[in-house]
């Protein structure tokens, strides 16, 4: 009974996607943060040098006889040299008036007597970082404000930043790769627990309803607990129905056995023919009802077992041979001979109790209908396919009823004098169907029936 599960999404995919997505986001944030911090530090470095440079220029500014003198020291520009040959621009303003240098540089208006003012701007199509600083010079009769603006292109900085970005990117990608690998590992180890549980549940036979005892992670414990309780209830209800059938058989058959034994014993003492006839009828009626009860219960059990078919590897020849041994005393009672022919060994995977019961019904029928001193032959063969065939020399099947005899409670017209429940062939048919086989009824040449159970 394969049941299709209703599948919605995959735990594995969900876990992997969440973990990898998270790792990608974190890696990107890491990259941005490292890059920004590096840019800030690099900028700070350039700013400090620019500041020192502009201060050293300002330090040379002096009022000499009312005239402003600025002697730009060599070191002021030397300290600004970079491997990328960045260009340096400067401008000197006195009281806001351009005095010397590059006119494109503009003073930072409104700045008074403060430390360095930094800003980024564009000059002649190049991005520069500029610093401005001012100082008030006081002479004998006048005072003046000198402001110096110093700008530098950022090629070296950009190069440094590029390198840092590359390194940060490598770091980010490495982090991402590591996190992705970790997320795959974490996912498969988590899902692995589930898979192990699934495997050990599916590897059980259909009749194994014992609780699941292997240790599982705490999160799976409730699942396993409810699985165990379900199996417990199932086991209980199965054994209840089996016990019920066994108990019902006991309740019905034991009193019947008593009545039958009494009738049998009485028959040995009674002389009067009409009493004897009555006792014989009693015994026959008891046999009839007990056989019907037995077959009904067997049929219920077989239907039940066929629904939960438990296959195991069996040797059909050994199985049928056991049965033949058991039935030999009954055959001998009627002076019938039972013989088992065919292959020495036929291996088949099926339910031995069902197959033996089916074969028992087939042989019982043959023993019932076979005339005294005849032979009942049983053949187990694997060619052309695995089959058990029972042949007798009885009256055979009425040709017009041969198709209906496997129905429940259907008996042949010529079977009215013989005790039977009409369930025997139904049971054989059910067992055949449960194993994916067929039951074939035929009459033999020269008289008699041939019943073939093909598996």
């Amino acid at each position: 009974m394969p049941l299709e599960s209703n599948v919605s999404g995959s735990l594995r995919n969900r876990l992997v996607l969440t973990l990898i997505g998270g790792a990608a986001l974190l890696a990107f944030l890491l990259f941005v943060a490292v890059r920004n911090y590096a840019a800030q530090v690099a900028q700070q470095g350039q700013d400090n040098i620019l500041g020192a440079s502009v201060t050293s220029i300002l330090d040379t500014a002096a009022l000499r006889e009312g005239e402003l003198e600025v002697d730009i020291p060599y070191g002021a520009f030397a300290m600004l040299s970079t491997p990328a040959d960045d260009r340096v621009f400067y401008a000197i303003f006195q009281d806001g008036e351009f005095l010397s240098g590059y006119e494109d540089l503009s003073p930072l208006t409104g700045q008074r007597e403060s430390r360095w003012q930094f800003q980024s701007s564009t000059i002649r199509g190049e991005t520069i970082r500029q610093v401005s600083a001012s100082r008030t010079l006081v002479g004998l009769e006048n005072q003046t404000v000198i402001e110096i603006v110093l700008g530098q292109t950022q090629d070296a900085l950009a190069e440094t930043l590029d390198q840092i970005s590359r390194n940060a990117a490598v770091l980010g990608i490495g982090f991402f790769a590591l996190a992705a690998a970790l997320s795959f590992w974490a996912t498969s180890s988590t899902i692995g627990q589930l898979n192990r549980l699934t495997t050990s549940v599916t590897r059980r036979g259909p009749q194994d309803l014992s609780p699941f005892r292997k240790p599982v992670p705490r999160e799976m414990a409730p699942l396993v607990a409810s699985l165990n309780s379900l199996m417990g209830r199932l086991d209980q209800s199965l054994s209840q129905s089996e016990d019920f059938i066994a108990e019902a058989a006991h309740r019905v058959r034991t009193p019947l056995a008593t009545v039958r034994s009494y009738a049998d014993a009485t028959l040995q003492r009674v002389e009067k023919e009409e009493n004897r006839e009555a006792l014989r009828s009693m015994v026959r009626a008891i046999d009839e009802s007990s056989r019907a009860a037995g077959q009904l219960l067997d049929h219920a059990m077989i239907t039940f077992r066929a629904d939960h078919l438990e296959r195991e590897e069996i040797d059909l020849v050994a199985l049928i041979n056991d049965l033949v041994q058991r039935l030999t005393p009954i055959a001998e009672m009627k002076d019938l001979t039972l013989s088992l022919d065919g292959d020495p060994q036929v291996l088949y995977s099926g339910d031995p109790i069902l197959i033996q019961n089916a074969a028992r019904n087939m042989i019982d029928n043959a023993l019932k209908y076979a005339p005294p001193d005849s032979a009942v032959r049983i053949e187990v063969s694997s060619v052309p396919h695995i089959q058990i065939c029972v042949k007798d020399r009885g009256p055979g099947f009425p040709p017009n009823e041969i198709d209906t005899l496997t129905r429940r409670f259907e008996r042949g017209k010529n079977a009215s004098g013989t005790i039977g429940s009409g369930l025997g062939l139904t049971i054989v048919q059910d067992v055949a169907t449960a194993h994916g086989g067929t039951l074939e009824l035929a009459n033999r040449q020269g008289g008699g029936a041939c019943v073939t159970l093909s598996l």
Partner: protein
Amino acid sequence: MKFLLVEDNPDLANAICSRMRLDGHVVDHAANLDDATGFVETQDYDLILLDIMLPDGDGRDFLKRHRAGNRDTPVIVLTARSQVSDRIGSLDLGADDYVTKPFDHAELEARCRAVLRRKSGNARTRIEVGGIVFDPLAGHLTVGDQTVSLRNRELRLLELFINAPGQVFSKQKLTDRLFSYDDMVSDNAIEVYVARLRKHLEPSELKITTLRGLGYRLDHAT
């Protein structure tokens, strides 16, 4: 033969005992496992007939103990369960055979005979009377230097006669003992078996006499 019957239903036990005594067997009856254990410890039996559902336990436990105690007395289980509904097979526990209730006495007898034949080995029960040697278990009849294997019904017929020498058996009585009730038996079926047995016994001192209107009797012709 000496039998122990372990069966808690008194009516059924009575019926089985009286029927088996009729066949010339000695039967002890235990109504529970406790009594059964007592009987087994003090007496030797040829065969034990064991019910499964007993007031003080499961007959299969008795069977297990019996086998664990290295006793090899054959056991036939009497059970109301069929093989398909019996979750623990009696045969797996060491029973030699089982009979499903209600059973035909002829079938029970046939099963006992088959089990005893399988188990007895060389310790045969031989009956020597009137120049014949009869082994009911093996089914051999030796007359003079000729040994024949008797068919089942011939054997049971001879057993009936030998167990009750001089008794007259009516045709009906013989029919009831030899045939099971679901057999369609014609009136002259018994005559066929009597005729066959007569032929086997011909060279000996035993002969089956027909008493017209009464039946048959085994006579010792001296």
